[in-house]
């Protein structure tokens, strides 16, 4: 660099200060926005909630006396600002069918509807009917609704019980004025982008300053959180004071701030530290300049992968931190992982224990890859012999296991392993061996799966080996020939090492695919006996789709699978370094 060290340090300090300020500003903005939105929501909801409770109390107090309740409805209409609708709905005891309830209005802001039944022909009545149903089961409901083109509404519904029996619902719909214009979210996004850009180009930082910055941000976040909690409390108290005017007490709690702004800030700070260590900014700029051809070649694939692979991938990774129930996801942190890695409280030999399944999966992958490669390579070597006749016929026939869809051939194989009627047992009987009950024991069920998957997988390896064998130049063999090497030596010392660059990807990817081979295990043994031949991927599937819809747990399983496979890849990469060194 041409600049002097002192100027660089000064530039670094300025950039650092900017960075710290923007980080702090972004955190504060995020927390403030969050608190403000919560406050606004509380402010909007509280009147409706209070009125509904008041109305329900009036109904109970008057024993469902129509006039008194109608009086209260009208009072709410007069007192309450922005009240659109208030009504009380009652229902008779249930008839022969538990889903048939006639509901009618006991009181209504529109006098014409008083004592009228909810009518399918009137728009909006069905929503009130369905709401009354939900209130019956879930208790009090407060919702906001922002239909397109219509103003924002708050709906509060309160169940009414008379003499221990549920008799109806008190409903208030308000249209609150928005207190202040909504704060858009884009400044927040811009702030975060600014932070990241600054960090990328702050190549002059030293390690110590980053730590200081991070510490400052964390402290500020903690302080801001407590302070903004007070800000929120202020909002809520104001509402309560306003609501107190109608004479009912309101018990409200300020909603808790979730920890995500704090975590996001810490994550950003950590990322910045890491990036700073490797001075990514300088490198990225330099790399873009000097290697633009390479990046250009890479761009089409990368763009497609980004949108269609990385984004869902990120979603899947994140899903492992949530618990899914009935279509809603709640954040549960690491508890999914804890549940899996601790074996779920089951002993080690139990099939649903993670380590048992992991052992089975490793065994499964190892055997399969070995068999696929050995058979595929052997066939490729035999079939590339120029003197062998009908090579083409053999090749086309041997590719059929790969060509016929595996969802039907897996079922055929399953039929062949049947204890009573299966072909395999018939053949065994011909040789005088007793019939085996293939799916009653782990070893035999595993063997059945193994045979099926080997049958399905070797054609692919054969094709890859055929292609790979073309990359070996003939003159190398000739040289070995002249030197007097035997056939076996030629294979071991020449063919195998030269085959590695082209074969290596197929083996690594084959390992990954076999590790995650769902179809065969699911269709052939279906995990029998007792779930012991299930591999990690089928376990994950069962958790997601067969036992209680636990998508979060399944995603956590998938994440663990990913970590295992990644470790394996990194380790093998380091050990073989196959791809580049062979031709150097």
């Amino acid at each position, binding site marked *: 660099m041409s600049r002097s060290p002192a100027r660089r340090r000064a530039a670094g300090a300025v950039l650092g200060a900017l960075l710290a300020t923007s980080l702090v500003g972004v955190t504060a903005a995020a927390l403030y926005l969050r608190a403000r939105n919560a406050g606004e929501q509380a402010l909007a909801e509280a009147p409706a909630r209070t009125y509904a409770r008041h109305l329900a109390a009036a109904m109970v107090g008057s024993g469902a006396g129509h006039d008194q309740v109608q009086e209260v409805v009208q009072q709410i209409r007069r007192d309450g600002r922005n009240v659109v609708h208030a009504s009380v709905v009652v229902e008779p005891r*249930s*008839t*022969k*069918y*538990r*889903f*048939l*309830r006639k509901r009618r209005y006991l009181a209504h802001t529109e006098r014409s509807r008083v004592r009228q039944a*909810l009518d*399918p022909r009137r728009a909006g*009545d*069905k929503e009130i*009917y*369905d709401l009354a*149903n939900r209130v*019956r*089961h879930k208790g009090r409901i407060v919702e906001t609704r922002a239909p397109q083109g219509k103003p924002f509404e708050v709906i509060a519904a309160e169940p009414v019980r008379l003499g221990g029996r549920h008799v109806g619902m008190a409903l208030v719909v308000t249209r609150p004025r928005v207190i202040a214009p909504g704060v858009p979210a884009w400044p927040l996004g811009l702030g975060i982008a600014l932070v990241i850009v600054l960090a990328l180009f702050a190549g002059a930082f030293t390690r110590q300053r980053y730590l200081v910055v991070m510490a400052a941000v964390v402290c500020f976040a903690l302080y801001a959180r407590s302070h903004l909690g007070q800000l929120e409390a202020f909002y809520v108290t104001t509402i309560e004071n306003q609501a107190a005017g109608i004479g009912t007490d309101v018990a409200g709690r300020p*909603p*808790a701030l*979730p920890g995500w702004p704090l975590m996001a800030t810490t994550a950003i700070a950590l990322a910045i530290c890491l990036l700073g260590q490797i001075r990514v900014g300088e490198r990225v700029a330099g790399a873009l300049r000097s290697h633009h051809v390479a990046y250009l070649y890479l761009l089409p694939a990368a763009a497609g992968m980004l949108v269609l692979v990385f984004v869902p991938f990120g979603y899947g990774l994140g899903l492992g931190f949530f*618990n899914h*129930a*009935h*279509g*809603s996801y*709640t*954040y*549960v942190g690491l508890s999914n992982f804890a*549940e899996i890695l601790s074996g*779920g*409280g089951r002993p080690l030999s139990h099939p*649903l224990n993670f380590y048992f399944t992991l052992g089975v999966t490793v065994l499964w992958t190892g055997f399969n890859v070995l068999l696929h490669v050995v058979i595929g390579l052997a066939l490729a070597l035999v079939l590339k012999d120029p003197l062998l006749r009908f090579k083409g016929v053999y090749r086309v026939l041997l590719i059929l296991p790969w060509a016929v869809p595996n969802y039907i051939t897996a*079922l055929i194989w399953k*039929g062949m392993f*049947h*204890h*009573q*009627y299966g072909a395999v047992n018939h053949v065994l009987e011909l040789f005088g061996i007793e019939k085996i*009950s293939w*799916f*009653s024991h782990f070893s035999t069920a595993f063997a059945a799966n193994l045979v099926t998957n080997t049958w399905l997988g070797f054609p692919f390896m054969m094709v890859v080996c055929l292609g790979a064998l073309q990359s070996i130049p003939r003159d190398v063999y000739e040289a070995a020939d002249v030197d007097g090497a035997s056939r076996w030596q030629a294979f071991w010392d020449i063919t195998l090492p030269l085959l590695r660059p082209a074969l290596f990807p197929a083996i690594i990817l084959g390992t990954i695919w076999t590790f995650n081979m769902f179809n065969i295990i699911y269709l052939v043994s279906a995990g*029998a*006996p*007792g*779930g012991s031949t299930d591999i990690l991927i089928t376990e994950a599937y*069962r958790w997601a*789709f*067969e*036992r*209680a*819809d*636990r998508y979060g*747990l399944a995603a956590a399983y998938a994440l663990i699978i990913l970590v295992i496979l990644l470790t394996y890849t990194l380790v093998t990469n380091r050990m073989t370094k196959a791809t580049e060194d062979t031709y150097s």
Partner: protein
Amino acid sequence: MTRRPVVCLALLLSTWLASTAGARPLVLWHAYRAAERSALEAAVQRWNSGARREDPEIQLLAVPYDAFPDKITAAIPRGHGPDLFIFAHDRVGDWAESKVVEPIEFWMTEQHADKFLFKAIDALCYGDSLFGLPMAFKSTALYYNKALVPSPPATTDELVAIGKQHTDRKKGRFGLVYDNNRLYFHAPWLFGFGGRIFDAGQKPKVHTAQAVKALAFARELGGEDGIVPPEPSTTLTTTLFNQGKAAMAISGPWMLGELDTKRIQVGVAPLPTVSSTGKPAGPFLGAEGVMMSARCKQKAAAFRAMSFLTSDAVAVERAVSARQPVANRAAWKDPRVKRDPILSAFRRQLDTAQVMAGTPQMRLVWSPYDMALQKVMNGSATPERALAEAQTEIERYLAAMQRPKESK
């Protein structure tokens, strides 16, 4: 020059007319094949050709059965789903909680509800709301080969006796074949011995004395001296029965389409009574209903379409042409339907069938119970222990399901 405004007016008028005449069609997804599919298509054709001006047309889409629930769960919450769909009732609870299906009881009257068999329409209820109108009901029953078994057994003792007559393991012939590794097919014995899945408080309780007895009975049937072949499956059930290698089978109406009635004289009867308890072996009852998506934009019209598809006239057509056990009471009085002995047998079975609960808790029970059945059938556990283990598993899943949620 004067023609142009007239043309424009005509265009405007025709567009306006077209737009008011049932603008967007109602999309209906189903998983029917073969005869059931043709029957549904014929019914939809009748609706489309006789449509009133404000009734939109129905557009059908056939989806393969195993992709159906996932497709619904993926599509409807994102607004790309159908307006109506036909599926079994067992996921109604989940779908109702996730707001995938719309409650329709607002448009129902008692007369309308009376048209259907009570159990069928009750199956489509969840939490005191009705989520669909029943098209058909499906349960297992006892199929028997009339050439081998002249009259069906009325009690389990008779069943075992007849079965033993026709069992010859060496020749690969068996008296009875059914998938004894799945709770769905084992359920008749469970209910016949007085067992239940849920206790009084609606919590799953599978480890009971009656359930153990039922499992022991099933083990007798399927063991080494039994009358049921080892490792049975639904595929094997159809194959063995079709080839005359099994005298009796326990399966549902779906098997009818696969039977070769030229080779085998098929008879269907309600499942027998359990001799030791005197209770009938009642199978699980599934109701197939047409349900409305919560995101449907023409709900009233969709309800009219639903009512048409489940009306008595259409039900009779479905029963006659596709041999569907329909859920309309009046259809069973039609002479063409009454003449069909197989359909009548399924109708009689309905009386002792127990509705499968459509609740999320029920979905937790299948997998552990199936595993317990597998273990008992291949002899690796006693009924007592297998059920105890199943109970532990179910309780674990329940605990995870009811984990306290963090508030928003």
